[in-house]
């Protein structure tokens, strides 16, 4: 995974076989349920949109314009992801069998390295801290507060 400020990489273990995960990624109704309403079709070259709420002040009008760039059934799906005033990025899902389930890797790349937010992120969160520690910190954030020291 590129440990830089132009990409985001997250992954999730799903206790379901790749065939089921693949269907959830490529069926428009399923996509609408876990991601956003869309007119996706599992065909390379198909252009479609995801639609969500606009984000006031950000220039994002709630429409993500996409194109299916690559498909390897039950292994890989890559789409372009364009939205807002200057977001021209690529989202790639990779499915890797893991035990009785699937690990889903998501790589969202192509963010502008000159964007002030990304520059600051790179400066502060160098090395493995951003990918590893921030993740653990987020788990802490999502967990109930620790008990008082006895």
């Amino acid at each position: 995974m590129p440990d830089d400020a132009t990409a985001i990489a997250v992954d999730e273990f799903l206790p379901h076989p790749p065939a089921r995960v693949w269907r959830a990624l490529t069926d428009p109704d399923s996509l609408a349920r876990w991601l956003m309403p869309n007119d996706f079709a599992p065909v390379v070259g198909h252009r479609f949109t995801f639609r969500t709420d606009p984000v006031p002040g950000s220039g994002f009008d709630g429409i993500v314009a996409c194109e299916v760039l690559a498909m390897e059934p039950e292994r890989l799906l890559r789409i372009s992801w364009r939205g807002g005033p200057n977001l021209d990025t690529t989202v790639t899902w990779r499915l890797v069998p893991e035990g009785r389930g699937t690990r889903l890797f998501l790589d969202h790349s192509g963010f502008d390295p000159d964007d002030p937010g990304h520059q600051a992120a790179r400066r502060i969160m160098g090395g493995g801290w951003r990918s590893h520690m921030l993740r653990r910190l987020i788990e802490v954030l999502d967990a109930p507060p620790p008990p008082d020291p006895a």
Partner: protein
Amino acid sequence: MSTDVFAALASPVRRQILELLIDGPQPVNSLAAHFDMRRPSVSEHLRVLRDAGLVTEQRDGRHRHYRLEAAPLSEVRDWLSPYERFWRTKLRNLRDLLDETDGDRAGDDA
């Protein structure tokens, strides 16, 4: 957004202190043992973290314990990468959806 939080996180030593506190509060002496520096230097780093609201100090008799405070980190999370948070939420949605519609799980096992 508090710039103090980012200044505090800019130091590798202070980031390491936060890592050490993830598993629970620790006394100053235990924290200081991890660093090749004099105790007053460690105390200074702890002061910066305290001023940024990232840790709090608790007195327990003669000992001072430091505890990680999550609230300012949520600022960092939101600011660093809205998309990272977006995708984590969406992948959780996906997991929930798959868990709910569990119909053909067994039949698909390879």
